């Protein structure tokens, strides 16, 4: 039973990250603007972040779905969830009225407490794949045989 919970969490987190990355990959300029609106990333690093972040999301999303480097992928997913929560909290504290840019770069959900709760759920879902010994069928198991 526990392994199926792990598998469900893997697929939920992986699917979320893949879905979140698709629009950002297609529109890097728009995503750079979204990141810039948070006023957290220095200008010289802005485009690097806009290019790299969606690819990290895609890679860890796919890794979680297929079960490749599962713990590392869950570790990244948890880390990114924490970073997203910190960015959203910072925007809320500064009273910024901006869109979160979580799933699309064209408007989208405004930053708010509900996003923090959603990211908290995402963070919680990262823990089983990271900590559990067995989280269902995975590609990694083929290489351990």
């Amino acid at each position, binding site marked *: 039973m526990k*392994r199926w919970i792990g598998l469900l969490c893997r697929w939920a987190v992986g699917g979320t990250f893949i879905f979140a990355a698709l629009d950002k*990959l297609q529109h*890097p*300029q728009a995503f*750079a*603007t979204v990141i*810039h609106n948070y006023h957290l990333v220095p*200008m*010289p690093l*802005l*485009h*690097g972040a*806009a*290019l*790299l972040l969606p*690819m*990290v999301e*895609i*890679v*860890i999303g796919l*890794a979680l779905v297929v079960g490749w*480097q*599962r*713990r*590392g*992928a869950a*570790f*990244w997913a948890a880390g990114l969830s924490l970073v997203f929560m910190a960015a959203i909290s910072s925007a809320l504290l500064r009273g910024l009225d901006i869109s979160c840019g979580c799933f699309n770069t064209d408007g989208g959900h405004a930053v708010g407490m509900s996003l923090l709760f959603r990211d908290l759920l995402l963070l919680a879902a990262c823990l089983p794949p*990271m*900590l*559990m*010994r*067995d989280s*269902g*069928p*995975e*590609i*990694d*198991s*083929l290489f*351990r*045989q």
Partner: protein
Amino acid sequence: MTSHPAPNPGRGFWPVTLRQAGVLLAVAVGLTALVWAVRPDRLPLVADAAVYELELAAPLVTPAEALVLFDDGDFLFLDTRPVDPGTVDTISGAFTLRAATFDDDLRLLTDIFLPEDPLLLFGDGDLSPVSNLAARLQARGYENLVILKGGLADWARAGGETTPAETGGTP
């Protein structure tokens, strides 16, 4: 696919997790570099502060997006550079609307498009004067405006169609 349990969390947990995280980061960096290299409308690695710090009067479109708008034929293209029509290369079919002769140019264009028509403004790549012109158009009721990022040079680099100086734009 048969499931074989991974090692127990505890001893060796962090080395394994961090090694895997490193592998995934390396893959992501490699793929990012690859995608960036093959993309025709690639983002410059270093951001131009003017693009982000300037409060633009209308949204920006990349040359690749502008090419799609050009092909769709819904948008009219307006050349905002302070030059006489026909004396410089311009985007094919573009009309001229200059800051210095704004009222005269706009009067000539009112027979060609209506305030609700979608317009794409471009210049020589400097966004500030184009944005100022967009604001003036908005004040006259033109609301459906976008600005071409990178101006004519980036348009041409992206493979956009241009008309040479001799046969330049109208009016």
